[in-house]
């Protein structure tokens, strides 16, 4: 019964996460991080390892939730623990993944999740590199428009363009450069 309640609570937290609610993120983070920290410490890992590991797991969770197809069938703690364990073992063993004789592993089929994560991770890295190579003011301009959803008017003012139309043209030029940087690498990896 208490398990069931916990899952209900976990689901609510996840809904919060899907809405990018800061409070939900904080609760999930604070409740689950100590468990992972302990696991990593027991396996000769440092506090920073634990942080990296847990944050990667949180990214996986967050992206799955954002996609809207994530159905929680176990406790959130179990899911995060299993993902972290998986990531940790992978890190320890390099890329050769050896099957775990762990019950957690059997109850949580993570193959798809991990594969998807790897693919997205690759895309993320390419985008990160492309953004890094783009330079200013393009980087901030694009971030402002596409990520922070600011209006063209605001952007024109911020960057000192005479009007929104000019800013828009500049934005498209930047976009084309970024696209080129991105796809040059993206198509290489295929």
């Amino acid at each position: 019964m208490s398990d069931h309640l916990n899952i209900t609570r976990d689901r609510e937290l996840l809904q919060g996460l899907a809405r990018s609610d800061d409070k939900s993120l904080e609760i999930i983070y604070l409740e689950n991080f100590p468990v992972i920290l302990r696991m990593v410490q027991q396996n000769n890992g440092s506090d920073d390892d634990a942080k990296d590991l847990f944050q990667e797991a949180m990214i996986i969770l967050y992206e799955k939730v954002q996609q809207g197809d994530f159905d929680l069938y176990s406790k959130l703690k179990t899911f995060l623990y299993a993902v972290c364990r998986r990531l940790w073992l992978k890190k320890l063993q390099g890329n050769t993944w050896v099957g775990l004789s762990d019950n957690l592993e059997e109850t949580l089929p993570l193959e798809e999740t991990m594969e998807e994560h790897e693919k997205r991770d690759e895309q993320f890295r390419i985008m990160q590199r492309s953004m890094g190579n783009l330079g200013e003011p393009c980087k901030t301009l694009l971030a402002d428009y596409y990520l922070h959803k600011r209006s063209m008017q605001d952007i024109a003012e911020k960057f000192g363009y005479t009007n929104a139309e000019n800013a828009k043209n500049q934005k498209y030029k930047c976009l084309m450069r970024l696209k080129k940087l991105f796809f040059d690498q993206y198509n290489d990896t295929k």
Partner: protein
Amino acid sequence: MKDQIQLLQEIESYLEGQLSDAERASFEARRQADPVLNAQVEEQQLFLQTLQQYGRRTELQQQMDRIHKHIATPQPANVVPIRKSTSYPRRRMITNLAAAACIALVTSLSTIAIMQRAAKQKTTAQYEDVRRVLNNIQRSQNALINNMNSTSKKAPANPGTYGGTGFAISTNGYIITNYHVVQGADSLYVQNNKGEAYKATSIFEDISSDLAILKIADSTFKSQPLPYQLKPQPVNLGEEVFTMGYPRDEIVYGKGYISAQTGFNGDTVAYQVSIPVNPGNSGAPLMDSEGNIVGIITGKQTTSDGIAFAVKSAHLKRLLDEMPKEKLPRREWTRKSAHLESMSRIDQIKKLEDFVYMVKVYN
């Protein structure tokens, strides 16, 4: 450049859903007709998705770092004792583990040693050479036979310590038998089924395949042409075979079949034969239904009845080919004088028994 910007703008408005219904329909029609445009739309879609994802992830990372700072900063005093308390048991654990590992290592090594020893003992217990230890009763029998055959050459009255079987591979006195039969021999005698005994010497021995080649010391010795040949091809599983040997002082016939293509413990130069053999059968020829030599009996398994082992004739042949030139008998084992294949078994035996000898070993 201008065109490209225009196109990009158009694609973007389409993806963002800013077009009117009519514009939208016309754009979609164009998209369907123009694969290049379609690819560009898809590209833009993927790109924007990745960009959004990038933004969200960066945002999340920053947020998490902020949260993490909250946990990390109020606990610096806590972190140190935790570390200390974890490092201590770890050291103790390592010592314990090392001790446990040592014990495990010693235990497993000794287990392996014991197991291997036991296995070895078992192996030797399972395999038995079928040479015969001649006893007093046989001695009197033997003496009797010798007396009866007073016309022929006599063997010494002492019948020897061990007995085995051998068969001729040439007309001038070359005989093949098992190495374990002649092992440690002071002197060797071979005796045919008429009771004629000849002194022989071992001229070539191959311990690994348990074979020995004997030569009758009498240089004037001459027998009939060999009625058989050494069959170079392996015989098939289930093929009927027979043997003749001297488990007694008299030649004994036995019939069986090839039951496996490998010998004791998977030995590839031997067959497993289901045939009754007894001490004294060592070195006996194994023949197929046409009277060709297919192997030479070397031993049997003690743990089960009717399982004997025979070295393959192909190996025998290879051994003969490898023999030093000056010792080599004439290659008479590749052809045969008689056509045994058309004969009945009784006639075959009659032809063959003259070429099968009892090997007697004195030491």
